[in-house]
């Protein structure tokens, strides 16, 4: 399969000027699918979504149709939430969708809300996406004015209110239950599951929560038919997927690919490969939280199952390429710094594990560690994995552990080199811990 054979569904005409406005979107056939959907029985839509085989594009890859079918029927307050808190390092696909084609997201949300019987919908958008939030808000106003949102939409009797809610800048709010808590006005901490959002989500009501790309794909699926959509891609990884390629490639950016394409064709074909004279040293197939793969793995096909089988994951579809100039020690340190900063602190292994890992990696970086410390780092990652309340802890442990495992030699080499260097221990403060203090009054 070659890059040119990939059908463009989500990125079709994405750069057309004014596509973010309703007239242009409508001219390209926008909202027609929604109009049709509002006349269809809900279970028919669920069935079609199931047929499409679409797996959630946010990272976990849970089948959309199945998730929608979990929402209980009945006359209760139900909610639809769009997870637009795209914060995973390396991931920037949702940003492009929201900025350039916000109406397809809104259309998808109207259909999704209608399908599960939700009358209130929220787009929880990452706080840093200020421009995209402005674009979305404007689009929501347009949709309202056109009668696509509000009461009795196009005479269907279906009501839907949609709000754009800006996050306050926390990676953890991309975790669906943390997002819901934050949306409710609480500290954005993940909740214990079960109950899952489909049963008790926002304000304890059944909630369908999906990623921007997933919801944007709904009009595409219904437009072409679920069965037709399922023909794209490979088994258990149907359809097309937006891939954000970044790092040491010549043409970084978003690409729409048909799942099942060879990774090499993405990295070296679409993204132009590394700069001449350099080789791919390792790459993250699904965002910074996926275990790294090596150059040999480039011939794997890029789909959910193959990535999992290779010991990594497709995640959000963000490929980060690191060429042979990259030090795995630096990358591990960066990752640990990020995840320690973003850990919410609710559960023990993540809160303490990310912190401890960072402290150990700082010692490694400074050359103040021994190979035994590398064992310790690996063991601590194993202690984090699978023991946390949500997946944030694993999101650090998996890539860090894969780096230490796959580049053990380089880590040890770094220690030796650092120890031998002239600036050994220069500027390292062994007492630097996390000093936080707000005195109320010291007890006499």
């Amino acid at each position, binding site marked *: 399969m070659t890059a040119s054979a990939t059908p463009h569904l989500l990125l079709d005409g994405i750069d057309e000027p004014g596509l973010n406005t309703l007239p242009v979107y409508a001219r390209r056939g926008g909202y027609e699918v929604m109009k049709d959907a509002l006349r269809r029985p809900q279970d028919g839509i669920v069935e079609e979504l199931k047929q499409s085989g679409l797996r959630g594009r946010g990272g976990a890859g849970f089948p959309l149709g199945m998730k929608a079918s979990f929402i209980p029927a009945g006359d209760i307050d139900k909610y639809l939430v769009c997870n637009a808190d795209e914060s995973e390092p390396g991931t920037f696909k949702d940003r492009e969708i929201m900025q350039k084609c916000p109406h397809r997201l809104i259309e998808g949300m109207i259909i999704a809300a209608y399908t599960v019987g939700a009358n209130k919908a929220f787009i929880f958008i990452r706080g840093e996406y200020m421009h995209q939030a402005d674009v979305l808000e404007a689009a929501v106003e347009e949709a309202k004015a056109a009668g696509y949102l509000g009461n009795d939409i196009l005479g269907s009797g279906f009501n839907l209110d949609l709000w754009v809610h800006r996050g306050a800048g926390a990676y*953890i709010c991309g975790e669906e239950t943390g997002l819901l808590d934050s949306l409710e006005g609480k500290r954005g901490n993940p909740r214990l599951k079960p109950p899952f959002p489909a049963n008790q989500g926002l304000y304890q009501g059944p909630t369908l929560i999906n990623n921007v790309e997933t919801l944007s794909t709904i009009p595409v699926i219904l437009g072409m038919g679920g069965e037709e959509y399922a023909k794209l891609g490979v088994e258990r990884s149907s359809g097309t997927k937006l891939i954000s390629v970044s790092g040491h490639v010549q043409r970084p950016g978003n690409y729409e690919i048909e799942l099942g394409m060879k990774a090499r064709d993405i990295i070296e074909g679409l993204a132009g490969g590394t700069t001449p004279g350099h080789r791919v040293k390792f790459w993250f197939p699904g965002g910074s939280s996926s275990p790294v793969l090596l150059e040999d793995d480039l011939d794997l096909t890029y789909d959910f199952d193959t990535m999992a089988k290779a010991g990594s994951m497709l995640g959000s579809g963000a490929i980060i390429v690191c060429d042979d100039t990259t030090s795995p020690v630096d990358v591990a340190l960066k990752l640990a710094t990020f995840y320690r900063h973003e850990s919410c*602190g609710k559960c023990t292994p993540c809160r*303490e594990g*990310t912190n401890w890992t960072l402290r150990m990696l700082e010692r490694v970086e400074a050359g103040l560690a021994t190979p035994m410390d590398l064992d310790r780092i690996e063991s601590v990652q194993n202690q984090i994995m699978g*023991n946390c309340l949500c997946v944030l802890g694993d999101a650090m442990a998996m890539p860090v552990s894969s780096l230490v495992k796959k580049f053990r030699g380089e880590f040890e080499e770094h220690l030796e080199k650092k120890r031998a260097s002239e600036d050994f221990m220069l500027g390292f403060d062994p007492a630097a811990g996390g000093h936080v203090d707000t005195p109320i009054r010291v007890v006499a």
Partner: protein
Amino acid sequence: MPRPQRSPITFTIDGRDVVAPEGTMLADAAKVGDVEIPVFCYEPKLGAPVGACRMCLVEVEGIPKLQTACSTPVKDGMVVNTTAPKVKAAQESVLEFLLVNHPLDCPVCDKGGECPLQDISYGWGRGLSRVAEPKRHFTKPLELSPLIAIDRERCILCYRCVRFSQEVAEDHQLVFLERGADTYVGTFDSHPYVAPFSGNIIELCPVGALTSRPYRFRARPWDIEGGGTVCTLCPGQCNVTHTVRDERVLRTLSRENDAVDDGWLCDKGRFSYQAATAPERLQQPLVRDADGNLQPASWDDALDRAASILRASGERTAAIAGGRTLNEEGYLLQRLLRDQLSSPHLESRIAPGPSRELLAALHAPALQATVPDLEFAHHVLLLDIEPQEAAPILELRLRKGARRLGTKLSVAGPRPSALDPRAQHVLRYAPGGNEGFLKALAAALEGGDVSGPAAAAGIDAAAVSGLADTLKAAGEDRVILYSDALLSGPGADESARALLRIAAALSLSGEDGAGSGGAGLLGIPATTNGRGLREAGVLPDAGPGLRAVAHPGRDLPGIAEGLAGSELDALIALGVDPIADLQGRAAWRQALGASHLIAVSSFLTEGVAGYAAVVFPQEAPAEQEGTLTHPDGRVQRARPAVRRPDGIRSGWWVLAQLAARLGDRTTLHTAGMAFAELTAEVPFLAGLTLDEIGGKGVRWPTLAEAATWPKGTTDLEPQTDATVVPPANGALRLARQSSPWRIPEVAASKALRFLVPSADARLAPADAERLGITEGSPVALSVDGTEISATARLDSRIPAGTVVAQAGVPGGGADELGGAAAGGIGLVEVRSA
């Protein structure tokens, strides 16, 4: 609401088959099979599990990932492994993580020796530390509040204290600040965490991060013993364990009793133990000498002196029993008065209340609601009661029901309540409008005329009808929680009749005679053992067992009047200071000035110091031995946790000695003998033994003997029109607020002293504007020439025309205002001072 019924199921844990109720969380169910699963964040009392600490990870067959036992309900046939290598590794991992930043300063930590983190580290930890990195540091210890010290380095961020503040006490003060490894517990803006139930977080803390400031460095776990008893400071009667070292109470902990306190305590109960060792506490008898000064005296001299006063006054003696008086003491007091002195002038309430027949009807076993009923009810109606003042612990129970089970609340009374935001209906009538309001509600339920009585109470008839409609439509488990104040004053009988009609209209009476149908009335007396004293016969018109007496005695105003005149000569005040504790201070000053006062007291309060001829020192709560009766009929045992100081004797002993000196032939040698006499006299307690009461108490309304409860009146027709609350006409109607912190034990406890209420007068912003009063400005309140000063507080929750003045403040506050205002219906002039 139906209580959860759980059928037993069988599951397997570590190879053993265990039978446990279905749906129980694994962490609890495991205990049935003698398997301990370590937990830190899990505490069922705090509500739904959060799964934050990850300590309880176990292997459940069929599920690939380890599961948190705290949040996994057991199912039939479930197979659980808590010792698999994978589980062991997870437990060691979590513990290692928890200790990464923990200072391990156990030798100097108050928690050392009774610390779950210590115990679990020994039991499940690896025993080695691999941490070479610096730990995080905080300035420590800090004062989280005057009562609680926080050591953030020791904190393992288990969430318990924050959840308590947010989801149990709902004071919403404690929060997590920062995030990740920088997270710490504190209050927003670092203000001190001062709240009525704050002390519970000390007990909840599974490490030494939150410690009691009064207890800090006072003892180690191997120095101390526990003494279980009942807190006798309010009618809530929470079960407590006193921590005792060298015959001194150094700490008070909760002794969980689901039927009473749900395992919580208020700060008054938790910290006022200090009053027992306060220097101002009386430690020996005092007798007033010829010069009018109280002088220390021997027990014999003091008893002789008291006996001679009583011998002289004879039937012209009156007696009032205060709140901490136990059942046995109440019984002996009424026997002393009725048998030795032939006087019927007895009272145990702080204001005149309904007559005997009405009390019998109100407290009929079939009509009694229990404390757990408050939680499981469909609807709870609060009538003129602020739980935080009357019995603080009940507030937590009401909040629990409302939060977790959706129990609906409605609040009616003249003052705002802390539970208003939780209430479906908030009805505010004019102070003194109890009778009118009750009659209006009764009429609304029965389909009678609502507008007349509603107008008399100064409330909108539509609001009353709305409440009635809600109550009618609510499920059958309806509970009415009311205070003594609802049924006191001149209209007490009429109010009681109306309340009984309301109860009848809502069919609150249980068929089984135990009130376990979940509906009923729950009356909270103004004093701790109010109910027990009534049942022991400390009433002017009822003997032990609430039986009728031939010659009823005077009510409180009558006693004051009699003492001031020449009809009565002497007063026995058992654990009560008429001036400080009863209404109408001026009248009581006059009464005591003209008579002989024999007081039993812990402190030299105004009436005792100024007027008593003889003062017997009273036992501290932790020294008392005997029984007391909870407002829902639960007879509980007070058991001494510490020895009495040398100069102090038991209340029952003092009364027995006085009776003997006045010719009583029976001899009592123990409190248990006094209890036996009480049960012999009170038919519905017949045969009850101290062993049966045990540590958790026995609700006598559930016993077969409850059938002997005297029949109450059935004639509930109103006999008069509702007393009309006078129009304010520019003045304000006075409502009293009685702070839970007003008791002398609080003032005498060093740690709690900062909570002694100040003289506040709260009024509606509209009234304040009209009177030219601003927030925080000094005001003067006057009635019939008596004037008090107070600080104005503007409160939009108070209806126009009402001023709520703080009672029980140093110097008197609202208590000083006598005249008509003493009875509750009165107008007060408020002006800027």
